[in-house]
């Protein structure tokens, strides 16, 4: 069946360092892969997405990498800041008309 899962439940990173959050997926039919950030008491907030025909996409301080061969997705956050502390979810979308399927979150702690 479909599943999107994360390798690690928590990640602690020193402020200013880069962080990498990983995710594995199993549904080869997915066309979009998405990263969401969820701060305490708030709803998921879109960070960046990548289409299945790409292997890398960059945003502001964030980069998403997609490796279709091993069905792996990662989110790189450069120069982490205290405001990056949150739970990060990877998600998949078979196509834009379809529901978004969330994986388990990774809690990112930024250490001072």
């Amino acid at each position, binding site marked *: 069946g479909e599943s999107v899962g994360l390798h690690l439940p928590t990640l602690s990173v020193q402020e200013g360092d880069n962080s990498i959050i990983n995710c594995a997926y199993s549904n080869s039919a997915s066309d979009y892969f998405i990263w969401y950030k969820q701060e305490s008491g708030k709803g998921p907030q879109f960070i960046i997405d990548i289409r299945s025909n790409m292997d890398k996409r960059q945003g502001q301080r964030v980069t998403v990498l997609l490796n279709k061969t091993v069905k792996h997705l990662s989110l790189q956050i450069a120069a982490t800041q205290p405001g990056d502390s949150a739970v990060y979810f990877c998600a998949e979308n078979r196509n834009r008309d379809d*529901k978004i399927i969330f994986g388990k979150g990774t809690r990112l702690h930024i250490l001072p």
Partner: protein
Amino acid sequence: EPEVTQTPSHQVTQMGQEVILRCVPISNHLYFYWYRQILGQKVEFLVSFYNNEISEKSEIFDDQFSVERPDGSNFTLKIRSTKLEDSAMYFCASRDLTANTEAFFGQGTRLTVV
């Protein structure tokens, strides 16, 4: 910046009571969703709604759940007879498919069934 608005932010209800969770999607969006998140767990899909009808629903969305778009702005989730295990955060989301944009989520309603 336009946003999805949900009310109330917190709802406490007795087991067996009906609750209605309200959402105002972004005004030009046509595709709507409800998700729920039990504390500390992942965000689970409940239902999607397009063109005044349910597009897809999950196994969680049983006969106790219903959705409605009673007017041009509100999108509601009704739980007919709440159970303790319905306690969760409920998120509404909307999407403008014509612009091929991502889904925007509201801040959620925390439902506590006692």
